[in-house]
């Protein structure tokens, strides 16, 4: 296995696309974080004409609450979750591209033939490639999380007056528009961890499609089409099914990943309701652990299929 890992290092170290993804995602997320942090305290409640003194007090309280609320995502440890949330799309797409590219290119370049001639044990070869993919995604993920932990010390956002968040509800009205409780380090890491699982699922799905269709582009395309199609079909099913049949679409991969991210946010106290399909009619919330178990089954199933597909494949490149 050591020689396979070393051979993959020789392959990967000169691939600029790989390093652009691995280093680019944390950089992009950091830029997005800094841009958000820079505008965090920029809150104004506008009023026109003569404002009565009691209303002026209410506006000032709402402004103070909003200012404190907008600064919350940039305070440690919640900054870790903020950074992770900002990296979600990039990390999923990056993981899918890495998998599709590192597996699909072997077929489009025809090098899989040489690999098969120099290493008869295809499954070990694929195991080494999987280890590299998970390692690269982990490096990106850890960089994002580490930046989330470090950046608040470098890019300081005035927390405002946190007491303003607990003002008299009769004065505050709809402000602030979300939970204001403290987020623990564990909660922030839970959100980040759910993102890592989601990225791995993106990798597994795109990697399987790339292996099956023997091309990077087909891998990404098929994985994307699958995710969209599953979402549409699940929405349709949920809106029409009754009884236990309502659970069926919630076994789907993309729906469960969306629920996993939502459940983690709820558990961390970032939101009060899960994201994604949870607002759809017919949605039945599953216990978070059961939801996570379904994701794990999907992940293991998809990765297992990688090995089945390559083991049985004719190498006619």
């Amino acid at each position, binding site marked *: 296995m050591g*020689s396979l890992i*070393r*051979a993959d290092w020789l*392959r990967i170290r*000169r691939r*600029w696309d790989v390093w652009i993804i691995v280093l680019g995602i944390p950089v992009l997320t950091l830029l997005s974080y800094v841009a958000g942090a820079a505008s965090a305290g920029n809150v104004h409640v506008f009023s026109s004409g003569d404002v009565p003194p009691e209303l002026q007090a209410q506006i000032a309280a709402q402004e103070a609450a909003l200012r404190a609320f907008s600064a919350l995502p940039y305070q440690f440890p919640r900054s870790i979750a903020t950074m992770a949330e900002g990296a979600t799309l990039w990390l999923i797409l990056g993981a899918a591209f890495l998998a599709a590219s590192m597996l699909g290119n072997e077929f489009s370049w025809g090098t899989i033939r040489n690999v098969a001639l*120099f290493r*008869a044990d295809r499954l070990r070869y694929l195991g080494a490639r999987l280890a590299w993919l998970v390692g690269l995604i982990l490096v990106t993920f850890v960089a994002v999380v580490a930046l989330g932990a470090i950046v608040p010390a470098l890019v300081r956002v005035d927390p405002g007056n946190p007491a303003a968040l607990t003002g008299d509800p009769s004065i505050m009205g709809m402000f602030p528009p979300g939970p204001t409780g403290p987020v623990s380090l564990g909660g922030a890491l839970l959100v980040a961890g759910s993102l890592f699982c989601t990225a791995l699922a993106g990798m597994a799905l795109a990697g399987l499609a790339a292996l099956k269709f023997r091309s990077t582009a087909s891998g990404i395309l098929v994985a994307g089409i699958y995710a969209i199609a599953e979402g549409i079909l699940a929405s349709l099913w949920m809106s029409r099914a009754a009884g236990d049949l309502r659970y069926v679409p919630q076994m789907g991969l993309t729906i469960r990943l969306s629920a996993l991210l939502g459940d983690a946010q709820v558990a961390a106290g970032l939101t009060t309701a899960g994201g994604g399909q949870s607002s759809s009619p017919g949605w039945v919330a599953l216990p978070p652990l059961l939801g996570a178990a379904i994701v794990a089954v999907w992940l293991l199933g998809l990765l297992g299929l990688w090995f089945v597909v390559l083991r049985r494949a*004719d190498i*006619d490149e």
Partner: protein
Amino acid sequence: MDAAIEARGLVRHFGPIPAVDGIDLYVPRGSVYGFLGPNGSGKTTTIRLLLGLLRPDRGSISLLGGSPHDASCLAQVGAVVERPAFYPYLSAHENLRLFATLAGMPSAVGSAAADRALGVVGLTTVAGRKVGGFSTGMKQRLAVALALLRDPTLVILDEPTNGLDPGGVVEVRGLIGELARSGRTVFLSTHVLTEVEQLCDRVAVLQRGRLVAEGLTRELLERGQRLAIAFDTGEEAGKAARVLADAGLEAEAADDRENTLLVAPDRLGLSAVNRLLAGHDLYPAELVLRRASLESVFLELTEGV
């Protein structure tokens, strides 16, 4: 003699079409074995089956006494299969070193093996250049270098001179000769019949997935040789054709010379034919054994099938 390659009843379909249809192969160790056939006859599919890249629907394969799926067996095999395939963003040396690492060679050993193989195919001066910028001929040489990287006992070459300039063809041909002289077994699939005629001691001809001929190259060429019997007049030639037909020898008129008959001397030798004709007062003006080219034998074998 011990077999380097032995295949029995090899069958492989692509959909309903049999690409390889019941092939038996026996390639003795130390031989240079020519594998001939027109485009689409199943040569590359057969090679992929032999190397374990494709799985046969039926039949068995033994490569150097083992299975093509056995790592220790494949370690003794070097192969060039169809178009060369390399990582375009890596240099020639890096590509070879990568595959040496994949084969389990320590870094220094792999690097030395890469240097040696590049030297053999004359690519030392461009070892540091990215393969993406290589010409077809350079890639083909690199593919040969990759095949030689592990100092193999058996070398399987599928059209190794494809894309090479005349100088490159001569070099690769010389290289194949050297491989043969060093005692390695060479399995050579090619369209260049003169290459086979010059290099191979055994030859197999494939047509539509089936072997239509197999044996020593010398024997195959003998099968195609003809006795050219020239007469002074057309009348004599016609009479001789009838005499030969009565003796069971089919004679045909030569395209290139008048009053000349061509006879396959399978059953009777040159002197026996001469005696037979003289017994009927027919005295040829010229009696010559025309050696066949592999090209003519190949066309004869593949056109009628």
